[in-house]
């Protein structure tokens, strides 16, 4: 009991010390953690429009109805294709775990063969549905996997931002570094630049708009541009409902088969 007490006092002291110096004493890791752990509600329903824009300017549009819920240690997500018509009701389920070491569980259901298949995904650097986003880019990457450093503070698009440079601890990772512009206080990454293994500028993620829904800041329109391939993905969220009560029974193979 005594030990715990002492520990509490020490922790308290550190916390007070930090507070007294204000936010300017935040480390790069702190900033990234604040983004990673920014509350977005317990569950969410939304319609995702994914626009894939090729180098020739041709556009492919996919409409997806998606449901997600945070179960603490695991975040579950299920998605149903609305269009294009030939993939309608194709569904996809993803369970993402809190522990960085545990990889996601993924399933896909193809109505044409009426089968649910597990997709074994070894790598979070896989691209998400042919888009320019990897699973990591979508917010899955745990802050502990990189080392972070605030390189400057600047006003970006009218917001006061921390500019944080992150380098992977695993040298074989697909990015050699990323640079994020994080809005102070709101903890939204407004822009992020990605550099490939050889250190060349690869992609840029831009948050086009975010909304406050039920007190949570939700990014509803973002755009990722691969500058090397000149390929762009836009993600637009509509009909966003937060904490509307998504049932835990929603995330099953049976629901995948049932479709929308």
């Amino acid at each position, binding site marked *: 009991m005594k030990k715990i007490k002492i520990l509490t006092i020490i922790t308290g002291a550190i916390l007070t010390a930090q507070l007294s110096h204000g936010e300017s004493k935040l480390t790069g890791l702190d900033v990234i953690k604040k983004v990673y752990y920014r509350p977005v509600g317990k569950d969410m329903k939304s319609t995702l429009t994914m626009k*894939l824009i090729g180098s020739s300017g041709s556009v492919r549009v996919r409409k997806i109805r998606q449901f997600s819920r945070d179960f603490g240690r695991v975040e579950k997500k299920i998605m149903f294709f609305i269009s294009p018509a030939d*993939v309608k009701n194709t569904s996809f389920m993803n369970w993402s775990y809190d522990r960085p070491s545990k990889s996601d569980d993924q399933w896909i259901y*193809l109505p*044409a*063969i009426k089968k649910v*298949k*597990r*997709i074994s995904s070894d790598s979070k650097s896989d*691209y998400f549905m042919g888009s320019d986003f990897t699973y990591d880019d979508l917010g899955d990457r745990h802050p502990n996997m990189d080392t972070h450093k605030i390189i400057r503070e600047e006003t970006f698009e009218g917001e006061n931002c921390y500019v944080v440079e992150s380098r992977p601890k695993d040298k074989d990772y697909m990015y050699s570094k990323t640079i994020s512009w994080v809005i102070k206080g709101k903890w939204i990454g407004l822009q992020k630049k990605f550099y490939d293994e*050889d250190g060349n500028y690869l992609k840029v993620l831009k948050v086009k708009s975010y909304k406050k829904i039920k007190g949570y800041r939700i990014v509803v329109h973002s755009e990722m541009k691969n500058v090397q391939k000149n390929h762009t993905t836009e993600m637009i969220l509509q009909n966003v409902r937060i904490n509307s009560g998504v049932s835990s029974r929603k995330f099953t193979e049976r629901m995948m088969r049932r479709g929308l």
Partner: protein
Amino acid sequence: MDRIRRFLMKRSKEVLIVILIITVFLGYVMKKNSRMETDLDEYMPKDHPAFVYSDYAEKLFHIKDGIMIAIEHNKSIYNPGTLKKLKILTKKLQKMPEIKKEDVTSLYTAENIVGHEGTIDVKDFYRSIPKSEEKLKSLREAVRGNDMVYKRLVSEDEKVTIIIARIDDNKFSQKFYERLLKISHSFEGPEKVYVAGVPIVEGTMAYLGAKDMKKMIPIVILVIILVLYLVLRSVKNLIFNLTIVILSTLWAFGFMALFKVPIYSVSTMIPVMLIAIGVADGIHMYSHLELFLRKNPEATREEALKDLFHSMWKPVVITSVTTAAGFISLLTSQVYPIKFFGLFTSLGVLFAMVFSLTVIPAGIVLFGFPEKKKDGNTKKKKDLLPNTFFYRSADLVMKHKKIIILSVIIITALSIYGTGKVWINSSFLDKFEESSDIVQTDRFINRHFGGTNTLNVIFESKLKGKFKDPHILKVISKIQDQVEAHKMAGNSFAITDYLKRMHRVMHEDRESFNKIPDSRDMIAQYLLLYEMSGDPDNLWKVINYEYNRANLSIQIKSDNSKVLKEVISIIEKNRPEVEKSDVKIHYAGSGYKALVFTDLILEGQIKSIILSLFMIIILLALQFKNIKTGLIGSVPIMITTVISFGVMGLFNIPLSTTTALVSSIALGIGIDYAVHFIERYRIYALDTGDVNRTIRLTMEHSGRAILFNAVVVILGFMVLAFSVFPPNRALGSLVSLNMFTSFAGTVTIMLILLYASGIYFKNEKIK
């Protein structure tokens, strides 16, 4: 003309100085503007539909030629050492600045679509080197079970594996190749490493051809100088004659630079043409002068020049203008380098004419007659060929008219038969020696894999999403089976291969599902699944974004045009069925472009030969005011052309850019010989009125000059027959052959025809 002559005689020094100043100026322009164009794409007519489409498709599907690096292990590649080398070499290639990372494919980078027990996965064959027997065995089985990799990246006997590095055309250089070889060969032992592929063949060809030419041309020129001296037997004449050739070549290239026209590889044929044609005027003029001086040993410079001008200006101008017109006809070609070749060669020919008529007289005015041996007796003995030789030759020709006519008919018939066998070859590899490294490596890789060359077939529909339709995909799959049955075609690869693999994997890896699914939705969902789990960039190499264009790539074991055409004909058989589904078939890729390009060159060449033949007949008829003369005068040209193509057909020399252009020499030289000969014949005929004397004298005068001209050029170009580079050998032999037939045709059959026509002997009925 007389005025010009008088002006030239008075102002020779000034004329030479002006020429010199212009030459220096052009030299300066050349130094500033001249540049070599080595990118083969620059040679193709950009607006030709076949090229426009191919370029479009190449961009859309990232079609590039591949360098292939094969690693051979004498037992099996499935051992830690070889797999490690494969991994490191793959990574090293990805790091080369000329190669993009994603353009390198090997077993190390390949993705394996697999499924078992309700899962589907797209994963690597290996990352860390498999060391245990068990892991090596499972890798081997994974490869054997995947048609998208087995026999494509690993040979059937599992002793060879291949790395394909696709590279942009303009990135290849000799330095890069040397670096690549050094890197690759550093991985040898116990493995053997082979490097081949289209970029290497093309690059090496351009390099070797130019290198060989650089070595051979000085020898050619030296031999020509030597023979020219033996013929002219005067240092002065030699120098002035060479000056004409050199100046006309310099001016031609100078004007190219002035108009900022780059030097293409066919432009190297310009000096070849100008040497062959440019020496002719000089030889004829000096030959005339010599004969004049022999008959009038006491003549003054003025008298000699007066006679020279009087007798020679007309044939020199006629031959040059007609030859220039012949080359101008090449402007009808669709290929810009050929257009420029025609334009600047005709300019060069006209320059040579101007220089012959100015530099030679000016030289005589300033530096006197050609040096002559004082002792008349020794001179006569030393004379290369005594006059009687030509008289006897003339008599011989007239004596054996029937035999000559008969042999001309036989040879022509044989040649026409041979012409039918002429085939076009756009192959680059066929230009190398069979025993050369480059051919042997290519053979090795073709023995073990699908092929070092690629033909791309592009299926195109107006309807978006068309290539999710099972029917058309089944047709494509059928075409693949048909093509792969051809013994020179290896693998083919298309969207169908992904679908077959996915279908099979989704059905517990059962072989019976290794086919195109029957439903459109299933196809769409498989493709979505692939996009979600694999690298969609791979997909965009076989299908476009809107799914209305599909790329079928076919590996071919040869770049020979015959093989390419056979494969295309297999595909063409399916055209009606494909078009019934509202899908069009196009072709793309460098091999196909080379094929179309060669066809274009030939088509243009044949059209221009026919066109220029008509022009020449008309021009000659106008000059000699007689249509019969025009026709007779074009006989040597026709014979030379027919024999040139006939020999190619009979001796299995394929037509290519260079060999096709050589036939232009027939025009230039044929005209020269015919005009000089007919002009002399006319003069002597009007002079003497005696046909036999006319023939003898013409033979002595023109026949001699023609023989000298032919000997000089033939001996010069025979040097190229000893080149190490086969295309240069073919060039040398064909130029020599054309010179010889032009000569022989003029002094035999054309002479006989002149005689038989009775022209210029109106009062005398002959036979």
